[in-house]
């Protein structure tokens, strides 16, 4: 059937009445990232380069929960994680616990290509990023007023929120499981 590409910007309890000012920028970003990926495939780029390119673009969009748009932990910190895998060789790379790396997916690829390992995490992953001159940013690049507000809402309702769950009044504890709506 030839080449193909698919991408996602996260899922969850996305309200069907999502206001246009929230829906349209996300749809535009999806279409832009799709066009980017299709052009790369058509120009003969390897799928590994195509998926890294598209995920980097999605990480740079503040609308999606990754990279610049990452959400906050209960401690108000950022912990980003990513992975990448090549189907033919099954080579893969993964990182977790990143706080300053602008494009976690590219660090995951460096782990795959520059180390004998698959997964690096937290301080060592950050040190590996600096050792390889990967672009990093101050926490103010990631911790935005919007996400501070979202964390506050989540705490008020004593819940963890999946990417797009609209905050609702506090749910009764159900076995302590997170309510995502």
């Amino acid at each position, binding site marked *: 059937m030839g080449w193909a590409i*698919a991408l996602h910007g996260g899922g969850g309890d996305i309200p069907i009445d999502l206001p246009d000012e929230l829906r349209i920028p996300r749809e535009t970003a999806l279409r832009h990232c799709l066009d980017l990926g299709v052009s790369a495939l058509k120009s003969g780029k390897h799928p590994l380069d195509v998926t890294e390119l598209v995920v980097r673009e999605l990480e740079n969009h503040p609308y*999606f929960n990754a990279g610049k748009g990452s959400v906050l932990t209960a401690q108000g910190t950022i912990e980003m994680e990513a992975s990448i895998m*090549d189907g033919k060789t099954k080579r893969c790379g993964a990182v977790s616990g990143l706080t300053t790396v602008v494009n976690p*997916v590219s660090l995951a690829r460096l782990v795959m290509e520059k180390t004998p390992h698959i997964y690096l995490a937290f301080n060592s992953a950050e040190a590996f990023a600096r050792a390889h001159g990967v672009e990093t940013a101050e926490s103010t690049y990631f911790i935005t007023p919007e996400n501070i507000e979202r964390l506050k809402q989540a705490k008020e309702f004593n*819940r963890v929120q999946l990417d797009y769950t609209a905050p609702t009044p506090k749910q009764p504890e159900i076995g302590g499981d997170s309510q995502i709506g």
Partner: protein
Amino acid sequence: TVGCVAVDSAGNTAAATSTGGYVNKMAGRIGDSPLIGAGTYANHLCAVSATGIGEYIIRATLAREVAALMEYKGLSLTEAAAYAVEQSGPRGTCGLVAVSANGEVAMPYNTNGMFRACAREDGYTEVAIWPKN
């Protein structure tokens, strides 16, 4: 969470996933996205990137499940992806995007929406959030 899967005309596949995790999650909590076989997987048959509640996706080894259903049960990508999402846990917990080595695309989910987009060489494209109907 964001992700992308791709296959070229030669059947080479790849998958990538990236996330900031959960709002209000415990510091130190690892989700499915960096776990190969859970949120991300690619082999000679397909490439998969998942999104949702990581704890369910990890328990279900969701991304690897799609490849295994194709390999050992001979399901098509569409059947394997739909079955894996359906079996992975309760409604409202996950979704995925996947491509097969021969250029099929699947984007099933059991939440009420998933930001998604796809394109195939035969010209089919889709950009959507909720079910198309």
